[in-house]
């Protein structure tokens, strides 16, 4: 109705149940004493509808009182969704709450229609074109309703046929090689690549566009795409019509604009050369690398405008690369987000970019690599945002997503074999978010006692000198590591020091004392081991241990590297005064080459060599075997073993009962290198490669490791095969073995295997699974085709 303007003396609201009058007055744009006309009334009605509480709003005038008549929307008592398989119920309920439909909330028919459309769209996106969504609303008393949404998903439409029309220069098979939408094939049952989705198709058409533009066809266009669905809505047919146009070559390239750095430096980065076939990808790499170069010296907003000037007759295009540096920018503040557990300084000390300094893209890139290298985060994202009100300042925002960078294992068990077993193992690379590496391990059972404690503070000094200490006491049965049968009881105390000498190189030193008591009994441990102990004449080895090391890490990513190299060299010495004086050298190198977007090659090698440098131990052994005699000359009782006479002292080669001379030389067996298993030559069970020996009276060959280790591997990674950042598939060739000594090295004895492996960064830590075929092996080798490791960084 039309209102002649009047001043409101009072306002009355009728029809309220759940909503309080006060609430209506907050949203109502009219107050007592206002003069009101029909326009004002219309605004009021619109305002009240916007609150979403009311199904109907009417305004009347009684004398000077404004009467607002409302009918409230019903409240939702129960909201149930049934029949949904592809989309989980929690995601649906979350989506519904965002649209405004939730238990206890107000029921709005408009919102319900929006929900039905949204669900249909989501299912269409998953290729389910004949989905039926039927919402039913049942009224209850006290203005309440129950809402039930029934979903009948129906079968997904399959892409039966994709057809490109108009491609003469390139076969359709190459064009569609990298597409995600595929015709139904045997892999579709698990890859689901024959399920149609609009996003997937538009992504594929974009790839088609790049394919042509990267090969000089600058006029390429996709004219039309038809997507037809069969009447039974089961099969889809996709046709795309395209005009290729002509191939263009580059006629000239010149760099203009304010290049800041000398033009020659900039021109060195230009990959697009006259005479080449034009390629958009090369152009993009060129413009990116020029703007990055300027970004390294403060020009955060630098960019390059590439304006082509096309010459239609002789099919060439001239390129004018106009460099726009923008202002030189300073970084005002560096803000960290997402570090609810990790302390700010642990992140800030990895930053190579300083606040109050000019912006450096190189420093920010290096900071990202270093932050990833900590291993505390699933993802690290570095972004710069201009500061409002100043033309030349940015804030750098680093957003991290923390992961569990450690493990906590607590075990309590009982078994006949090992009695009561208790095991507590806490290892945290980021202990309490302070960046310190702490590992405490205590496990006990009847044949194993182990107490380890290690602590390293990677930033004992502000510039990154790391200091730490290890303490352990272990009573070990080595046979559970597939190696020879001997037990050892060892205790150690060590100090560890690390000094960064350049951005990528670190030198390290360790000094410690340890004692190692070996129990190797004749008949169970292999003879060379027992001879060694006898020759040394002492079962307990006290060692004054020193180690120096050097490492260089230029990898571009901590867990899934694409380029760069990791090298480590260490020399460990049992210093003079130790029971046995020896040294151990170890060198590792691992290099990554990025072949292209889909292939990353990795070559690895590890060489270990150890030897003694002190005096050798020689001992002559005199021995006469005992015999079985009938000591109580009673034939019925069994004979008794009577040991032979005591060996002559001192035992000389000339003594009558001289048996042999044994010498202990070279690297002590308990310090030997081992090979085989996931970290060296896959396909062979852990630590079983290399020399073997038998114990007296047994023919069972026990691996005893060796003083020389040579292991190598060539592995090809396929980062794009699985599109989750945390998983990488690879094919590999592993070669390697350990040898008793330098002389014993024989390339013919090198074992080799080839196979496939999966590296997956799971929430519980990195897991690697590999399946290998050893093809250079000996019959006595212990094979293990399927192997996996869990946790630990490799």
């Amino acid at each position: 109705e039309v209102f002649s303007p009047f001043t409101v003396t009072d306002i009355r609201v009728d029809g309220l149940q759940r909503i309080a009058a006060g609430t209506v007055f907050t949203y109502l744009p009219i107050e007592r004493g206002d003069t009101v006309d029909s326009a004002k009334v219309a605004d009021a009605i619109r305002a009240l509808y916007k609150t979403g509480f009311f199904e109907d709003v009417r305004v009347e005038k009684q004398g000077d009182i404004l009467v607002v008549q409302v009918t409230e929307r019903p409240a939702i008592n129960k909201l149930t969704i049934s029949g949904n398989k592809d989309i989980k119920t929690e995601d649906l309920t979350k989506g519904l709450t965002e649209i405004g439909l939730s238990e206890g909330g107000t029921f709005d028919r408009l919102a319900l229609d929006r929900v039905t459309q949204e669900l249909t769209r989501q299912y269409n996106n998953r290729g389910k074109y004949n989905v039926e969504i039927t919402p039913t609303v049942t009224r209850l008393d006290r203005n309440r309703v129950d809402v039930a949404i029934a979903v009948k998903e129906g079968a997904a439409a399959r892409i039966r046929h994709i057809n490109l029309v108009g491609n003469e220069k390139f076969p359709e098979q190459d064009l569609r090689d990298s597409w995600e939408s595929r015709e139904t094939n045997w892999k579709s049952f698990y890859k689901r690549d024959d399920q149609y989705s609009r996003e997937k198709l538009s992504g594929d058409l974009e790839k088609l566009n790049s394919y042509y533009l990267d090969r000089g066809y600058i006029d390429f266009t996709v004219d039309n795409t038809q997507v037809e669905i069969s009447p039974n809505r089961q099969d889809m047919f996709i046709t795309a019509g395209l005009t290729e146009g002509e191939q263009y070559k580059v006629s000239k390239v010149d760099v203009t604009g304010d290049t800041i750095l000398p033009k020659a430096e900039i021109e060195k980065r230009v990959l697009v050369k006259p005479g080449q076939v034009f390629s958009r990808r090369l152009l993009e790499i060129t413009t990116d690398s020029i703007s990055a170069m300027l970004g390294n010296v403060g020009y955060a907003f630098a960019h390059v405008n590439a304006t082509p000037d096309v010459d239609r007759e002789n099919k060439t295009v001239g390129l004018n690369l106009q460099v726009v540096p923008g202002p030189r920018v300073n970084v005002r503040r560096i803000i960290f987000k997402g570090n609810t557990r990790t302390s700010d300084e642990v992140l800030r000390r990895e930053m190579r970019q300083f606040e109050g300094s000019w912006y450096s893209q190189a420093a920010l890139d290096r900071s990202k690599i270093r932050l990833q290298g900590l291993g505390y985060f699933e993802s690290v994202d570095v972004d710069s945002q201009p500061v409002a009100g100043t033309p030349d300042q940015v804030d750098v925002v680093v957003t991290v997503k923390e992961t569990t960078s450690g493990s906590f294992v607590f075990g309590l068990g009982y078994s006949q074999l090992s009695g009561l077993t208790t095991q507590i193992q806490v290892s945290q690379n980021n202990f309490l978010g302070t960046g310190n590496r702490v590992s405490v391990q205590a496990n006990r059972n009847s044949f194993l006692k182990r107490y380890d404690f290690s602590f390293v503070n990677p930033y004992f000094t502000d510039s990154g000198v790391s200091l730490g200490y290890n303490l352990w006491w272990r009573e070990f049965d080595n046979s559970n590591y597939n190696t020879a049968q001997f037990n050892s009881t060892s205790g150690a105390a060590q100090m560890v020091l690390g000094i960064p000498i350049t951005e990528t190189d670190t030198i390290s030193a360790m000094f410690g004392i340890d004692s190692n008591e070996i129990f190797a009994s004749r008949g169970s441990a292999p003879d060379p081991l027992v001879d060694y102990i006898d020759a040394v004449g002492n079962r307990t080895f006290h060692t004054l241990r020193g180690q120096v090391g050097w490492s260089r890490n230029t990898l571009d990513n901590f867990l899934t590297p694409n380029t760069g190299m990791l090298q480590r060299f260490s020399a460990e010495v049992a210093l003079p005064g130790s029971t046995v004086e020896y040294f151990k050298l170890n060198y590792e190198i691992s290099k990554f080459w990025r072949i292209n977007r889909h292939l990353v090659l990795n070559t690895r090698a590890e060489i270990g060599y150890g030897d003694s440098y002190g005096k050798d131990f020689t001992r002559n052994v005199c021995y006469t075997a005992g015999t079985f005699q009938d000591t109580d000359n009673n034939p019925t009782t069994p004979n008794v073993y009577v040991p032979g006479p005591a060996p002559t002292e001192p035992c000389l080669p000339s003594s009558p009962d001289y048996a042999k001379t044994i010498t202990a030389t070279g690297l002590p067996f308990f310090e030997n290198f081992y090979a085989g298993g996931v970290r060296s030559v896959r396909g062979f069970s852990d630590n079983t490669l290399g020399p073997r020996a038998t114990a007296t009276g047994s023919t069972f060959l026990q691996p005893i490791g060796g003083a020389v280790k040579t292991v190598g591997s060539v592995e090809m990674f396929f980062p794009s095969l699985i599109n989750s950042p945390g998983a990488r598939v690879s094919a590999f060739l592993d070669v390697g073995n350990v040898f008793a000594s330098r002389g014993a090295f024989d390339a013919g004895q090198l074992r080799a295997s080839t196979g496939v492996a999966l590296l997956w960064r799971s929430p519980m830590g990195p897991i690697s699974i590999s399946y290998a075929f050893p093809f250079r092996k000996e019959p006595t080798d212990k094979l293990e085709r399927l192997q996996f490791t869990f946790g630990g960084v490799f």
Partner: protein
Amino acid sequence: CARFKNRNGDALEGQPVETIYQKAHRSMLSGNWSTAEEAFKRLVAQYPYGPYTEQALIETAYAQYKAGQHDDAVSTIDRFIRTYPTHKNIAYLYYLRGLTNSSRDAVFLQRVWHLDPARRDLATPMQAYNDFSIVAERYGNSRYAADARERMAKLRDTFARYEMDTALYYLRRDANVAAIDRAKYVLENYPQSAYQADAIATLASAYKALGNTTLAADARAELQKVDPNHAYLRGNWPDYPGHLRRLNPFGGDASALKH
């Protein structure tokens, strides 16, 4: 256990609103937050309006807060504020949201390991500060205003402490411009914080390190006025914690700031 759950649900079906409320409230008093929350949810679904419903929604939010379900508590509070913007104790809802946000990301057993919350992401404490400022400004004379103002002051000190720790981080590394900017940020944004004097002392040491004698002298004079017995004036400031402390795994977060 599912059988047990809906038996409890059926027991509440069709009961008068007072009985459901009494039952839920009893679980609240005995600290049994999840059963209380469940009972209140059934109450609100069956009786979508009326004073009991509003009270039930408020106690649901409190139960969720006490049970540590911070995200649920905040969404319950937001829904209440949208539906009952002029409720008589709406101030309590903003206050409760402030409480929830200030303990939302606290590291477990934070005090036991004496970890410093100022060192971690301050996003949720900042939200808590906004909630408390709503209580203090819009509901200044409510029961909660005084405590809200006190908590705001404490939060301001935490934010200022974060800025100061970062300023000292840069001062130690001879990045004096960065230290000056962080100190100025404290002076401009947290004027009455407990670190006023420390900020001025940072300016003075940074200027001294830069060899800018005039600015250093003036900053020192300013410090003299603000806190005559500040350690800087006696020459041993900042007094960084010893290095040996860094070898103690349970050393927690040490800082040169004394408050």
